[in-house]
């Protein structure tokens, strides 16, 4: 039904996942993971699971980003590999 929208969302999902894996600056990885969670929430909503999408948007794109940023402040910004 919404296959064009879902195709665009899947392409952006792959892009954000690839950037989050390949980034050397961990802050970029955290922001890309947050964008990944938001796109996942939109995909869940297009599949009709509004409750799951709402939970994903609130937890994955909201609180997890804050906690990961705190973890970065406690440790280091850059990865060695």
């Amino acid at each position, binding site marked *: 039904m919404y296959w064009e929208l879902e195709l665009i969302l899947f392409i952006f999902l792959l892009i954000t996942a690839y950037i989050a894996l390949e980034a050397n600056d961990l802050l970029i990885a955290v922001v890309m993971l947050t964008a990944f969670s938001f796109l996942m929430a939109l995909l869940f909503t297009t599949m009709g699971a*509004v409750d799951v999408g*709402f939970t994903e948007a609130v937890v994955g794109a909201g609180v997890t980003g804050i906690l990961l940023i705190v973890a970065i*402040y406690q440790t280091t910004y850059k990865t060695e590999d």
Partner: protein
Amino acid sequence: MTNKEQSPIILLGSRFLSPYIMVFGFYVIFHGHYSPGGGFQGGTLLAASLLLIRIASGTEIASLQFKDYLATPYAALGVLIYFGTGLTAIFTGGYFLDYEQLPIPGLEAADLRYWGILIVELGIGLTVMTVLVLIYDNMVKGEDYA
């Protein structure tokens, strides 16, 4: 969180945004019976509005909004609300969380289910909010870290 120079734009922006997130969290909790959402999502939204102030302005200003030593008692209070509702239904002759057996006078079975779910979700929201704030405070403080 850190002691670098404060940015007034970030502080004012988060102070503008935080009450609206909090109102939306209360909306999600109080409409949890007949729309998507409920105690967990609403509590997480309330925690997000508290953590926004905490991450933008530091611990001193954020303790004016929600003091960190209140987090553990409120979490225990939320768990007590949840299990108190469930065990009250057991003691009055039903099953655990059997809302129709709650001893509230003058209500029909449908109204009893309505109020029972609302009370339970208030407990869940309180616990989720305070435990997420507790996790943030302990990560910033670094008690197990030094």
